[in-house]
């Protein structure tokens, strides 16, 4: 499908503005959520003690795999073969990350707790 430049601009403002129907791809709402979350992240991370920076990296690595949500959408459906395969592989990859990330964080934190 061909979209002209004009429609690109239209669509952009349509998404950002209060365009009658709720736009599917978010628009201003998602941008608001994103920016506020960046600020939360900023203050949270400055509070982390430097000694725990390694667990911080491994736990953020684990939670960034929350894109498994998108992978589940793609894998659980029955209609699109190739999307389904992509989804399956993506679930396997993110599951490695989630389980691995939380396990290694747990291991590290146990070391810190033991030495209290």
């Amino acid at each position, binding site marked *: *499908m061909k979209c002209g430049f004009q429609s*690109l601009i239209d669509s*952009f403002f349509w998404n950002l503005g209060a365009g009658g129907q709720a736009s*599917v*791809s*978010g628009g201003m709402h*998602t941008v608001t959520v*994103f920016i506020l*979350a*960046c600020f*939360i*992240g900023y203050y*949270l*991370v400055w509070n982390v*003690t*430097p000694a*725990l*920076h*390694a*667990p*911080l*990296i491994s*736990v*953020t*690595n*684990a*939670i*960034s*795999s*929350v*894109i*498994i*949500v*998108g*992978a589940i959408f*793609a*894998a659980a459906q*029955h209609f*699109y073969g*190739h*999307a*389904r395969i*992509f989804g399956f*592989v*993506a679930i396997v*990859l*993110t*599951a*490695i*990350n*989630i*389980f691995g990330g*939380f396990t*290694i964080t*747990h291991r*590290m*934190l146990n*070391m*810190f*707790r033991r030495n209290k």
Partner: protein
Amino acid sequence: MIADTLYLIAAVCFIFALSGLSRAESAQRGNLCGIFGMTTACVAAYLTTRSGDFWFVLIAVISGGGIGVFIAKAVSMTALPQMVAGFHSLVGLAAVLISFSACFAPELFRISTSSGIKVLSLLEMGLGSSIGAITFLGSIIAFLKLQGMYKGHSIPTSLNTFFAFAICCLLLCFMLTESEEAFLLLTLVSLLFGATLIMPIGGADMPVVVSMLNSYSGWATSGIGFTIANDLLIITGALVGSSGAILSYIMCKGMNRSLWSVIFTPEPAKSVNKSTFDEPRTFKSGAPEDAAFILKNANSVVVVPGYGMATSKAQHALKELGDILKKEGIGVKYAIHPVAGRMPGHMNVLLAEAGVPYDEVFELDEINRDFAFCDVAYVIGANDVVNPAAKNDPSCPIYGMPILDAEKAKIILFLKRSMGTGYAGVDNELFYISNTMMLLGDAKKTTENIIKAMQ
């Protein structure tokens, strides 16, 4: 509605997971919150699919989870940076795959209209895939470097500029035409860009690279979140992205370099004073017995661990030595430079692994004044982070980097594999001053020999 509530719960759990890390006592609880949040998110995602193929999903989760747990249990703490880099690459690849499914089956994510996919969704999809691809191959390169399997090549900055420009053009092209070819090409160029971005970055800058890739994996998650209009992914991605960005900033500050210079002028110019190499300078080398004698007669010892401790796995021997010293009534403290090791907090984890109590471990600002009052600085596997040239010699490449003032200690015991220079390629004045004793050889063996000599 139910799913949205569950997503909200998951997002709050992730926030608790990070806030738990502000203290070691609450960190473990934070990790459990994270696990709970992730489970909630997966359940919510499955509920949204409305009677999706449960077993298909479960098989994928179990097989991936099994591999993940196995890796995480098997990996040694020394190899932590490689493992983290490897894991980052998986997030990147998953982001690419999900964008692909979104591109080829947009109906799945409800982003298509009668006239094709929404333009904004195309932008988000393209960005998600592009950042994912950069994270994927960049992390693979970082993994190979940390594993010592790849040494690195220098890449002309113009090539990186070209790739960045090409990515922007392809992104625009994809938005305007919705052509799958443009999408594939965009992903391909982003892959190349990821590789060329990380290839030239040197070993000492690895802490920055690891945090930077951490940040990218977060932005990729956000990108996918925008594509499929899922607030949880956007929030989590933003948390992870800003976390990685702050860590990169802290690491850069620890080296007095800008992020820009780490990425685009990776190898610090080796403008070493040649005269220092022409004539071999004299230094005092000692035997473990001498070191044992010095340590026994000290009142306070500050240990400065570096990457060398990690490579020779000397942390356990070091802990044993510390215990012996404490039994003799000698004060022992550990001084950690922000960029010691190959990832942020690497040294802290290794010391914790060996069982060093964390109230004996101090950051640069907390301990730097203590060197003037301590009898022995025990430098084990560190080099550039104690090099006084960073303060005195404006012509040296690491000038301006904050260092640990080990030179102020009465006696410096320097455990080092050889007289070679550190990663920055700078000779260290500290080797040649009169109150330094060099103990050349493997850090672990030397420490063990010192312990033997003390008993």
